[in-house]
């Protein structure tokens, strides 16, 4: 897979994610905030798929984080689900930019959970090294939201 398959809203994620996709032989990767804001993607061809996957991934992270809280322990590090031909790996981690979530889909014929997890550690280290400081929070206006969403989708799909 070439760098052309990885698209990023925040450019500092591009190199680490490109390396990860190649090393882990991942089919789809989504890098986002726990709120579902997408920072980068690889392998998705339609905006609607990215938005759905981001929303579902963020929802799963929110559910498991709450479950961990009720069990009185720190949030779960990762979650895996293996199907007949594909597997899903979902994990959250912290960077200077703030907490991030990665959703990885891999083909069992091309990769494995072991490889996906092994190179995920490298991805996290590289993202932490490249990460900018957290942005100051500001009030989100409806007009800004729609404009920023469109800009993000343009970046993710090269429009």
């Amino acid at each position, binding site marked *: 897979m070439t760098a052309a398959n990885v698209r990023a809203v925040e450019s500092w994620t591009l190199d680490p994610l490109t390396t990860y996709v190649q090393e882990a032989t991942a089919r789809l990767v989504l890098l986002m905030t726990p709120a579902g804001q997408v920072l980068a993607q690889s392998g998705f061809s339609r905006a609607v798929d990215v938005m759905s996957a981001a929303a579902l991934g963020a929802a799963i992270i929110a559910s498991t984080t709450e479950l961990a809280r009720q069990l009185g322990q720190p949030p779960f590090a990762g979650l895996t689900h*293996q199907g007949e031909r594909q597997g899903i790996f979902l994990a959250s981690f912290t960077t200077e930019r703030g907490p991030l979530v990665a959703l990885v889909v891999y083909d*069992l014929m091309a*990769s*494995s*959970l*072991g*490889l996906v*997890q*092994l190179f995920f550690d490298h991805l996290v280290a590289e993202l932490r090294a490249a990460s900018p400081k957290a942005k100051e929070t500001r009030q989100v206006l409806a007009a800004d939201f729609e404009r920023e969403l469109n800009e993000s989708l343009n970046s993710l799909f090269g429009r």
Partner: protein
Amino acid sequence: MNAVAFGRALEQVTQVRGVRGAMLVSGQDGLVVAEQLMEGLRGPAVAALAASLSSRLSRAMGAAGLGIGQFWHLQCEGGALLVVPAASGLLVVAVADPEVNVGLVRLELLRAAEVAR
């Protein structure tokens, strides 16, 4: 088949002079099931990469009509990686010094694979 039996089987492999570590690895996932490794060996990394290699080799041998692999020996400058697939889908993996007695390691790996059957 339990953790104690796995541990004993791996111990037999690591008792061969020159063996730095032995692992039982899930062939499909590349995850460590049991391990006995010397300090400094990165078990999860070796497991993931050995399973990936094993999967590709199996497909290559299948495509060539050679059947199921029984023993793989990768000799490198600084050591050797030896793998025996068990019938259960587990892989018995050994990491050894370059001058290890390969025949003896192979024998112990095959015995361990019987335990993991």
